[in-house]
């Protein structure tokens, strides 16, 4: 047999298309990353002269020289904190129920599942509408308060929490639970003592992501009077409030340019909070993944 050559025999055209395609994909990724960096750089550039303790400790003001975000930061912590206290336990319980106790081939279960999936896709602003109709006004009539806002955000993140918690529970190998059942544990004991502890990192990751989503969300609370000038921190569920994203919105809509820089500073604060939350979540997930791989 004559000498064989294994050198590439790709036609020039194929080679060119392959190369162009690879460049296109790489360019897309780099452009996306560059865009994130550019947004962050712009925020920093526009507000670096404002970054001091005062921007965090000052209350909203009509004077750009002493306007800040204290009441907005506390408002966000209150609203999101209460929302998390409501949504995380209910979400986790629902997830456990659907994964471990509800009949898998049950018609009702599948209706509930579809419902949860669709709730996760309902535009955020619609949750503000149900809050306006039933919670702030209507039957509950709680007014434009921390409590109303927290309920709205809790409803918004509940489906997200359920979906990620279910995924985390599903990722626990069924053999673990079978082992516990074979030792005479009840279904609930097996779930509570064996499945849930293994699923905790996944549930935590999902919960943090859901909470950070609530922290950055602005639209639903537009309808609950959060876009207002509040110069005091909330003291309870019945307090008036504003939140960080909407006070950014408010400063951004001011016609005076100085306030736009304050909005940038607020954005930077918000982004730092959210990125910290996201990093914790990603770190937790990475660690859990690595553990389960070994």
């Amino acid at each position, binding site marked *: *047999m004559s*000498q*064989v*050559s*294994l*050198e*590439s*025999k*790709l036609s020039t055209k*194929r080679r060119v298309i392959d190369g162009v395609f690879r460049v296109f994909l790489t360019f897309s990724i780099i452009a996306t990353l560059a865009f994130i960096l550019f947004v962050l750089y712009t925020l920093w550039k526009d507000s670096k002269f404002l970054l001091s303790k005062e921007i965090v400790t000052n209350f909203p003001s009509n004077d750009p020289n002493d306007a800040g975000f204290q009441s907005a930061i506390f408002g966000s912590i209150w609203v999101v904190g209460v929302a998390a206290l409501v949504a995380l336990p209910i979400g986790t319980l629902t997830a456990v129920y659907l994964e471990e106790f509800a009949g898998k081939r049950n018609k009702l279960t599948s209706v509930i599942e579809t419902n949860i999936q669709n709730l996760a896709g309902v535009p955020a602003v619609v949750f503000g509408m149900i809050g306006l109709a039933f919670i702030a006004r209507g039957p509950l009539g709680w007014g434009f308060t921390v409590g109303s806002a927290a309920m709205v955000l809790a409803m918004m993140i509940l489906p997200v929490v359920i979906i990620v918690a279910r995924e985390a529970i599903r990722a626990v190998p069924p053999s673990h639970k079978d082992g516990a059942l074979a030792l005479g544990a009840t279904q609930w004991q097996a779930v509570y003592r064996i499945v849930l502890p293994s699923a905790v990192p996944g549930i935590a990751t999902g919960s943090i992501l859901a909470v950070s989503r609530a922290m950055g969300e602005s639209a639903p609370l537009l309808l609950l009077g959060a876009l207002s000038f509040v110069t005091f921190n909330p003291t309870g569920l019945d307090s008036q409030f504003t939140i960080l994203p909407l006070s950014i919105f408010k400063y951004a809509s001011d016609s005076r340019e100085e306030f736009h820089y304050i909005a940038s500073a607020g954005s930077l604060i918000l982004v730092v909070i959210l990125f910290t939350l996201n990093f914790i979540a990603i770190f937790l997930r990475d660690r859990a993944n690595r553990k389960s791989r070994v």
Partner: protein
Amino acid sequence: MTATSTERNAQGVMEFIDPVFTLSDVAVSYSDFLAVSNVNLQIPSMDVTAFIGPSGCGKSTILRSLNRTNDLIPGAKVHGKISYHEADLYDPKASAVEVRRRIGMVFQKPNPFPKSIYENIAFGPKVNGRPSKSELDVIVEKSLRSAALWDEVKDRLNDSALSLSGGQQQRLCIARSLAVDPEVILMDEPCSALDPIATARIEDLMIELKRDYTIVIVTHNMQQAARVSSYTAFFVTEVNPLGDRRTGKLVEFDSTSKMFSNPTDPRTEAYVTGKMG
């Protein structure tokens, strides 16, 4: 024209006239894990060679290194030298794409593309050139005939390949690999997902195909190795002296009749007679 030679070189490796593959001190590792090492063997042209051995012995790993399918697994590295005729398979100038076009592969589970029967066969010729519709028709028919599938599917070439039975799907995958006109077909346990009747048809097909192609088959089924192959390589797994992971090793390579009747190594005898596995 079967290469028949029982010459052995200084290392005791059976040598053939114009072998298709020559493996010298081949080892394959995945990241820090040595999957198989110290493989020296030659694979003859226009014949069927079988790789047998217990699970984890590295026979599939060696098979996958013969057409650089291992390149696709992150961290996989081939050490030593694998020659394809005179060319070094892992030469920096060698193109994996060209290697795989010449050396086809059929996998454990049938893996037709979710396209029509016709498009499955046409895929390879299409990416490797610009055949006209009529040329494609010829290639498709020829490949399906060679894989003994034509009569069963000729009236429904546009049906989804997924509508075929498991055995038909596997023959489709064989036909698909024939369509790019390879010299070698590697088969990685091609019948392990099939029932006995489908298996028998694939075995007949292999015997048929060895007139035109060199076939290397990995199998768990010793009767299959005995039925279809002329040469057999037996691998075992040994505890790696460097760690607690197990590494595969080639024990013996000889003509199939010798391997199954009068093997040199006691481990081979134990395996083929069913005492170990």
